[in-house]
C-alpha cells in the first residue's frame, strides 16, 4: 500500500543487525545472576508449591506428631514449634506447618501481585497512549485526574477504599491496579508524547497511515523496552503494598495464607523467639531484593548503551 519507510525498528531488523549497530549483550553481574536464580525458584514454587507442600495450608498438625519418645506428655503443644523433622520450618500460632503455608502463600502473594501489575500496565499504557495521541482535552483531563491519584499516599487510598468496600480478592486487585496504573500512565504518556512528535511518526502520517496503525506499529514497539525494567520495580512496589495491607489485616483474608498476613498472625510468637513471623517476611525480602538486583543490572546495561550512543 505504501513504500517501506525506514523506522528505527526496520533498520535493526533489515540486515544483520550486529554489523550495523553492535548490540552489547546483556551481561548479568553475580548479584544479578543470584537474583535471577531466586526469581526462578519462587516462580517454580508458584507453579508446584501446593503439590510439594507436606501439608495443606489450613491443616492443624496432629499432637501425636510432636510426642517426644521418653517424655511422658501425651498432649504436647503444637503451636510455635521450632523447626524439626515434623515441620521443617516450625509451626505457626495455630499449630499449622509454616513451610506448607509459605508454599501455598507463594501462589497467593505472587499471583495476586502479578495479576495486579499486569492490570496496572494494561490500564496505564492504554490511558497513557490515549492521552498522548488523543488530543489536548483528553490529555489534560486524564492528567489532572492522574495527578490527584498520585498525590495521595498509596496506603491512604487503599485504606479509604477498603473501609468502604471491605477486603476481598477482586477489590484488592482492582484497587492495587488502579493505584499503580497512575504511575504507569505517567511514564507511558511521556514516552508516547515523545514518539508521537518523532520524524518516523510524521512520515507514517504523511504516507496515510491511520492513528490505530501508528499506535500499533510505531508507538507501542518504541516504548516496550524502556517500560520493561519499570515493570520489575512496579511489581516490587505492588508486592510490598499488598503485603503491607495484609500485615494491617486488611489484605488477603484468612484462612488463605499470604506472606504479609502470615507475618501479622504470628507476631505474638516474636517475644518467644518463634521463627514463624520471620520466615514469610524473609521470603518477601528475598523475592523483592532479587527483582531489584536484576532491574539494577538491566538499567545499568541500558545506561551504558545510552552513554555509548551519546559519545
Amino acid at each position, binding site marked *: 500500500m505504501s513504500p517501506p519507510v525506514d523506522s528505527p525498528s526496520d533498520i535493526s531488523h533489515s540486515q544483520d543487525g550486529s554489523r550495523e549497530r553492535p548490540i552489547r549483550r546483556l551481561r548479568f553481574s553475580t548479584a544479578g545472576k543470584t537474583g535471577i536464580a531466586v526469581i526462578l525458584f519462587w516462580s517454580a514454587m508458584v507453579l508446584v508449591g501446593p503439590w510439594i507442600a507436606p501439608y495443606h495450608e489450613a491443616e492443624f498438625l496432629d499432637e501425636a506428631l510432636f510426642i517426644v519418645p521418653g517424655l511422658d506428655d501425651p498432649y504436647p503443644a503444637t503451636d510455635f514449634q521450632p523447626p524439626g523433622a515434623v515441620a521443617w520450618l516450625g509451626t505457626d500460632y495455630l499449630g499449622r506447618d509454616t513451610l506448607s503455608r509459605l508454599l501455598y502463600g507463594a501462589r497467593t502473594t505472587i499471583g495476586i501481585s502479578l495479576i495486579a501489575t499486569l492490570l496496572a500496565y494494561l490500564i496505564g499504557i492504554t490511558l497513557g497512549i490515549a492521552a498522548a495521541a488523543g488530543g489536548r482535552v483528553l490529555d489534560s483531563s486524564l492528567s489532572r485526574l492522574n495527578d490527584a491519584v498520585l498525590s495521595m499516599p498509596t496506603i491512604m487510598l487503599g*485504606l479509604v477504599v477498603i473501609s468502604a468496600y471491605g477486603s476481598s480478592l477482586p477489590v484488592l486487585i482492582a484497587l492495587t491496579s488502579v493505584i499503580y496504573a497512575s504511575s504507569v500512565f505517567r511514564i507511558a504518556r511521556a514516552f508516547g508524547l515523545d514518539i508521537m512528535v518523532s520524524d518516523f511518526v510524521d512520515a507514517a502520517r504523511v504516507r496515510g497511515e491511520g492513528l490505530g496503525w501508528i499506535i500499533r506499529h510505531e508507538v507501542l514497539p518504541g516504548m516496550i523496552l524502556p517500560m520493561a525494567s519499570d515493570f520489575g520495580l512496579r511489581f516490587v512496589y505492588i508486592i510490598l503494598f499488598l503485603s503491607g495491607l495484609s500485615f494491617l489485616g486488611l489484605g488477603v483474608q484468612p484462612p488463605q495464607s499470604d506472606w504479609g498476613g502470615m507475618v501479622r498472625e504470628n507476631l505474638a510468637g516474636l517475644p518467644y*523467639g518463634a521463627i514463624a513471623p520471620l520466615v514469610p517476611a524473609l521470603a518477601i525480602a528475598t523475592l523483592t531484593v532479587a527483582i531489584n538486583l536484576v532491574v539494577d543490572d538491566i538499567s545499568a546495561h541500558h545506561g551504558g548503551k545510552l552513554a555509548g550512543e551519546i559519545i
Partner: protein
Amino acid sequence: MLIRAVLHRIATGLVTLVVVSVLIFLGTSVLPGDVASIILGQMATPESLAALRSTLGLDQPAYLRYFMWLGDLLSGDLGISKAGSGAGTGGTPISEMIAPRLANTVHLAGAVALIAVPLSLGLGLAAAARAGTRLDRSITLTTLGLVSVPEFLVATALVLVVAVYLGWLPATAYVSGTETGTALLKALALPTLTLVVVASSQIIRMTRASVLNVMSSPYIEMAVLKGLPRRRIVLRHALPNAVGPIVNVIALNLAYLVSGVVIVETIFAYPGLAKLMVDAVQTRDLPLVQACAMIFCSAYIVLVFIADLASILSNPRLRYPR
C-alpha cells in the same frame, strides 16, 4: 517570574487538594454498608435504618453531602465519629479524638526527621564522594536491601534484636500521655529507629544519585581538567547544583513517611493518627477515615509542594512553565 511560578504551583496544589477531597468522599460515601446499618447491627429494620439515616443526613444526595462535608471541614468541624455513638448518644467529636493522636504522630515524625535527615545526607554524600570504593558499595547494597524489604520486616527484626534478645527497650510503644523524660524516650525509641532506617535508606540512595548526576556533568569535568582540588570542586561547583535535588529528595521522603507511619504505629501499638485511621477502617467509621485521610493527604501535598519549590528555586529553567 519566580513569584508567578510559585503562585502557579500553589494553585495546582489547591486544585489537587480539591480533587483529592472529592476522591476521598467518593471512595467512602457513595457505597453500600453505611454507618447506620453498623450502628443498628442486628436490630436493623428497614424503618429504623431509614429513620437513623435521615437523622445522620445519610439520605441526602451525594453531591449535597459532599458540600456539607467540605463546608464543615473548612470551618474546622471534622464531624462526629459515628461508630462511637450508640442509639441517640451523639458520638464523639472527631476533632477531640484526633488532637492527641495527631500530636503523638507529629512527635514521632519530628524525631524521625531530626535523626534521619542529617544521618542520611552524611552517608549519601560520603558514598557519592567515594563512588566505587568499598564504602560506597557497602552503603549502596545495604540501602538497596533495606528499600526492598517491607517496613514490617525492619520493625520485627529490630524488636527481635533490641527488645527480645537484648532486652533494652519495650516491644510495644504504648503512650498514655502522662509519660515524661526517659519513659517517653524509651517508648518512642523503637518506632523512631524503624522509621529512621526505612526513610534514611531512601534518602541515602537518592542523595548519592543526584550528587553523582551533577558530578558527571561537563562543567565538573571542566573543573577537573582545570586542575582544581577535589574539595573545591565538590563544595563550590557540585554542591550548589545538588542542593535543589537533595531538598527535593528530603521533602519527598518525609511525605513517603506517611505510609511508613501507618505500618509502624500499628506494629508498635503507638497511639498516633495512623493507628486511629487503621482502627477506623476496621470499624468502617467513615467520617473518621475521611478526616484522617484528608489530614494525611494535605500533609503529603504540602511536602510535595515544598519539594517542588526547592527545585524551582535551585533550577531557574523551571521558572518558565512551558
